[in-house]
């Protein structure tokens, strides 16, 4: 599925929101602020067999990509998008309480209560290194992280570069800035439906969530790419080695889609949603 590089706004944007979105985009370096596209649907596997086939195909592709190393995987935007699409379809099926079949061969183990567990060390195809970098590096204590990396052979210069990158690039701000234009433009679509007194179809809401999350995921991948670009290849391998020593597991469980969608639409219908959402996104900017 393609993300339009130069989206054309479908509705007039109030000057305040436009200015802040532009400011956010410039602050965090978002090259292409993507808005909601009504024509772009979220992918959906038709049955468990198709889901299994897609999960297997992605596992093989990810295994081949990992041979080139973490940095190459982080830079591979297409691989990241493919992982996102497969995980999206898995989660949608889990949310809908539909059978995803036996995916234990791919490391997705049925826990018998409607949830699924994944050992991310044993099945690294589900462990996106960009997510690992973006999720863990800002959370770790800087001084202790520096000591751990130094002990494993990272140079003082690269530890300094990593520290500078983390101080100057806020992954939360980058993620919020990518999600904001999708949310603001979708709120206008919701108002359009409300104006003609038609319910907003769930499929359209899922298309919105899909596009918003895909934009946010790519923002995080770009952030992680900045990390590996800032470091020498040896230092990236040190980071990789440090993360390999950790044990990571995941649980995928069904969401309450009905309640979630109702709450989400209620927020989008707030009379000053654009201003508040923009303020929220701006609030995480350093």
């Amino acid at each position, binding site marked *: 599925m393609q993300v339009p590089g130069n989206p054309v706004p479908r509705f007039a944007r109030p000057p305040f929101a436009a200015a802040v979105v532009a400011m956010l985009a410039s602050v965090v370096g978002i090259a292409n602020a993507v808005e909601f596209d009504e024509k772009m649907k979220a992918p959906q596997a038709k049955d468990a067999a198709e889901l299994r086939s897609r999960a297997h195909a992605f596992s093989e592709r990810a295994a081949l990509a990992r041979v080139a190393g973490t940095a190459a995987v982080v830079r591979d935007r297409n691989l990241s998008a493919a992982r996102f699409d497969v995980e999206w379809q898995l989660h949608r099926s889990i949310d809908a309480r539909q059978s995803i079949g036996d995916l234990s061969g791919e490391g997705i183990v049925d826990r018998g209560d409607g949830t699924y567990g994944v050992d991310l060390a044993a099945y690294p195809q589900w462990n*996106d290194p960009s997510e690992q970098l973006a*999720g863990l590096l800002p959370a770790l204590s800087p001084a202790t992280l520096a000591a751990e990396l130094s002990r494993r052979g990272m140079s003082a210069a690269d530890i300094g570069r990593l520290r500078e990158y983390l101080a100057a690039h806020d992954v939360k701000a980058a993620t*919020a800035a990518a999600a904001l234009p999708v949310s603001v433009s979708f709120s206008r679509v919701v108002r359009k439906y409300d104006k003609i007194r038609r319910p907003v179809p769930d499929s359209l809401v899922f298309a919105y969530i899909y596009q*918003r999350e895909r934009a946010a995921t790519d923002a995080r991948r770009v952030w992680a790419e900045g990390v590996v670009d800032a470091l020498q290849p040896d230092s990236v391998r040190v980071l990789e080695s440090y993360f390999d020593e950790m044990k990571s597991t995941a649980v995928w469980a069904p*969401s309450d889609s009905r309640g979630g969608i109702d709450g989400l639409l209620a927020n989008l219908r707030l009379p000053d949603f654009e201003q508040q959402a923009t*303020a929220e*996104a701006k609030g995480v900017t350093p």
Partner: protein
Amino acid sequence: MNRIEWLSRLAALALVVSLGGSAPARAMPDLRTTVLPIYQVGNGAGVSLGHVVNAYTVYNRLTAGGTYSASCASPQMLPATGQRVLSSDGLLGGRSLTVTIPEWVPATINMPGFDSLTRGTTVSCTYNWTARAVEGGYTVGSGGITFPTGSGERSEGSTQPFQMSVPGDTNTDDWQGCIP
């Protein structure tokens, strides 16, 4: 101030408060736990430990947290425990939380009673951890880790072994003389 304006200001205030605990969004709704390397620091009572809980929902409200208990198979030693929980909500859906347990990780925690062990002793220890997330409506209690009955609940937990040793008398390292 009319009602809509008042509600808007209230919502904005809630956002500011909630964003203090929010963290980067994950790709998909899930609960992900990363247990950091668990090891004895040098020859002393300190253990480097901790885990990170990354929780995510595509919707607007989320509570996540976890607990840990490090304990060793020795009657002279007591467990070290801790817990943490955070909540997040906001208008921009796709809430995520990164909860480090304990607050700063990796953390060096001194194991109570380790200094009472005799020289040359090696004890088997375990790091027991839990992680939990609830999306949807919630209230957070003040008396410890209190989760609401929400929707989309995810939880997991496990145990990771490690060892602690007190160097023996025969160790030729000059520094060992400093260890009681």
